[in-house]
């Protein structure tokens, strides 16, 4: 038994040496993100802020996005309760995704790249590498948990108790461990590392959707959901430790299963079989755009399904919104007074979420061109009559079209489900949804443009665009709650765009942001033409 994992400690130390910079960014990034919004929330808390917010948060739409809270009365909605309510699910999700990607990157992906073969020829246990990676990831998440707990408690806020802070940190850390465990299991089953990544993210996404449903209706069912265990600890309020225990047991079982499978597996293969392919290329493949479409087919399809599913699940809430509004006098006054239906104002928030998600796809597609370059797959293409111009613009236009398609699909899902839920006499029709969603399209173009700029001038920064996307998303997301000063929220592109259908369409802003996005792409092109291609980089 010990033979399986022999010398894992050497590999573990090696991993830490190789990854220390990444670990630093990870812990600091997620840590600061998870704890940095406290002052902003304190601002809202002044006066009756928390109570008003409590009412808003009872809206099923908000519960679907953010999760539930155990607090029953508005008076008990302290800063701690609110912070946990707003932040925990999201941060846990972030930790989960990062851990999953990290684990697959160091196991299956390295296998696929041939790095593992040589390591396996040494007197190193067959599964030493997997154990080393899991240990590293658990360690990182433990450090993260402590860092978050410490930082939160360090604020000295009365409602941010030490116990609660630690539980908050531990919940996020445990989310990371869960993500790692699921990823390790998928790495054994799927035929390639990209499939393993897709499957892990898909599972996490599915868990999110299921949890959105159960949180709104049967909260107890959320306890069966692994993702639920990250936020049902209710720090600062009820402080349950039990969900963490569930998470730990589940993770342990998943990892044990993964190890059992790995012990029987050939290096480089998964348990799901590969299907044989075509002997000759079909006509659709025989062109630059055909090639790119084919390369990205899986990714695009997967995201489209995700966009539709997310749109539809948010759309199904619209029916509940009316009932919710009718049950609450205060809110009814708030919203009818403003002359805007509750559905309209929430559409803006939901579309912010979906737009940021949709933007991921074009960024990924643009970045893909660089990945292909680094992997030397484009070497031969560079020597043909296919110009750089053609490569660049085909890819960028594909990204833009994918972004547009994604916007349409998510709006379609949202609108169709909402229309079905609201029934007769709905304040919004499907056209409104499409219009509102496409109103945000320039933001998608902006991010695609940023990625294109990076591709042309400093392609390794392509990944940083995701960071900026996440940052912008967070700013907008919390702006509604925290009311940031203009200049601060202005750092996120989406805030420049008015939130339809509640606010009127602003043609000038639409054109301006579109123009900026296009300009970024052209600038990127200029750089792409000039720079050295990463051969053997």
């Amino acid at each position: 038994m010990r033979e399986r994992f022999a010398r894992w400690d050497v590999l573990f130390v090696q991993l830490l040496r190789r990854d220390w910079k990444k670990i630093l960014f990870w812990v600091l990034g997620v840590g600061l993100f998870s704890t940095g919004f406290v002052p902003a929330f304190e601002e809202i808390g002044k006066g009756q802020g928390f109570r008003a917010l409590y009412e808003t948060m009872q809206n099923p739409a908000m519960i679907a996005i953010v999760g539930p809270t155990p607090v029953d009365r508005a008076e008990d909605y302290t800063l701690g309760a609110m912070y946990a309510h707003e932040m925990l699910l999201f941060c846990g999700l972030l930790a989960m995704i990062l851990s999953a990607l990290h684990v697959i990157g160091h196991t299956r992906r390295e296998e696929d790249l041939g790095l593992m073969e040589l390591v396996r020829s040494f007197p190193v246990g067959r599964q030493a590498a997997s154990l080393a990676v899991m240990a590293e990831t658990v360690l990182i998440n433990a450090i993260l948990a402590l860092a978050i707990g410490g930082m939160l408690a360090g604020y000295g806020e009365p409602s941010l108790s030490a116990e609660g802070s630690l539980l908050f940190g531990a919940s996020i850390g445990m989310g990371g461990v869960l993500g790692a465990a699921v990823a390790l299991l998928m790495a054994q089953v799927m035929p390639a590392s990209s499939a393993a990544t897709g499957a892990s993210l898909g599972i996490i996404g599915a868990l999110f959707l299921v949890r959105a449903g159960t949180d709104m209706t049967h909260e107890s069912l959320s306890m069966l959901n692994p993702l639920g265990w990250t936020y049902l600890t209710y720090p600062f309020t009820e402080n349950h430790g039990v969900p963490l225990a569930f998470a730990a047991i589940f993770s342990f079982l998943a990892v044990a299963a993964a190890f059992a499978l790995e012990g029987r597996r050939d290096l480089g293969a998964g348990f799901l079989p590969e299907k044989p392919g075509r002997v000759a290329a079909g006509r659709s493949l025989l062109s630059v755009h055909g090639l790119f479409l084919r390369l990205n087919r899986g990714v695009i399809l997967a995201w489209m399904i995700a966009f539709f599913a997310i749109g539809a699940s948010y759309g199904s809430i619209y029916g509940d919104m009316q009932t919710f509004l009718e049950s609450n006098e205060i809110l009814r006054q708030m919203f009818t007074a403003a002359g805007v239906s509750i559905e309209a104002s929430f559409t803006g928030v939901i579309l912010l979420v979906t737009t940021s998600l949709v933007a991921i796809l074009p960024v990924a597609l643009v970045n893909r061109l660089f990945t292909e370059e680094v992997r030397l797959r484009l070497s031969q293409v560079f020597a043909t009559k296919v110009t750089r111009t053609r490569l660049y613009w085909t890819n960028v236009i594909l990204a833009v079209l994918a972004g547009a398609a994604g916007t349409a699909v998510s709006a379609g899902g949202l609108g169709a489900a909402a229309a079905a839920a609201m029934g007769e006499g709905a304040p919004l029709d499907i056209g409104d949804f499409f219009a509102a969603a496409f109103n945000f399209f320039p933001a998608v173009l902006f991010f695609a443009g940023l990625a294109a700029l990076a591709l042309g001038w400093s392609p390794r920064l392509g990944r940083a665009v995701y960071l900026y996307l996440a940052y912008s998303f967070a700013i907008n997301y919390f702006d509604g709650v925290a009311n940031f000063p203009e200049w601060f929220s202005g750092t996120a592109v989406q805030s420049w765009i008015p939130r339809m259908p509640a606010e009127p369409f602003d043609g000038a802003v639409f054109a301006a942001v579109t123009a900026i996005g296009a300009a970024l792409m052209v600038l990127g092109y200029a750089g792409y033409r000039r720079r050295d291609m990463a051969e053997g980089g």
Partner: protein
Amino acid sequence: MSEIVIVRGLQKSFGRVKALQDVTFSVGEGEVVGFIGPNGAGKSTTIRILLGILRRDAGEARIFGRDVWKDSLEIHRRISYVPGDVALWGNLTGGEIIDLFINLHGGGDRRKRDFLIRRFELDPGKKAKSYSKGNRQKVALIAALSVESDLYILDEPTSGLDPLMEAVFQDEVRKLKEAGKSVLLSSHILSEVERLADRVVIIRQGRVVETGTLEELRHLTRTTIRLAVEGDVRGLAAVRGVHDFRAERNQATFSADREHIHHILSEALKLGIRNIEAVPPALEDLFMRHYES
């Protein structure tokens, strides 16, 4: 002489593709065995099975008398491996990677490592991502040769090296042989195999089609003879044992079956031999013959 590597009736399938049908061969102590065959024949698959990276479907595979899958850890303590395609961690330097590999093996000779780095002319301070294919190969070679092993498994170890480094490599393998180590060398560079190998194993379509010393294998092929005679050389074309006869004025080139050499030469003597050249069959001819058959 004990058998260091024993492979019997090895079988391996990937899905529906049968990569190895029946592979049987052995490597003795202090022997250098050349493992050759066309692309896709199953060489790397066999080697991966020996390393416990792939799990065989049937058959026996033992190194040092132990099962390659179950006792892989024990076995790996005493072997060195150089893969066909060397992938390295881009952000570590060559020197760091060599030291890591030596460490993972369980320790090696520091002076030998330094000596080899100089001999192979490798710059150990550069990051691995900036190495050319040949340099990556050198990293793996140096790491493998710096440790004390009893069996060296080399899978196309010199495919990216220049002729100078190829010569260095061959010299180092010769030293291993003199020290009594065993080597399994898989290579497409037949001159390399010819120079280094004691025995050759030829694999094709997942089956071992020929094994034996070069001497033994040469018996199976024909000697190439170039003759210049006084008389009409074309008369020799019909002689038994003469194949692929080509004549140019009075000079003829043909392949001769070993068992008929005496008869052929007697016939040639009648014509009056002016000049004669006999070239032993090259491994390449041997190889090609197995391709065609």
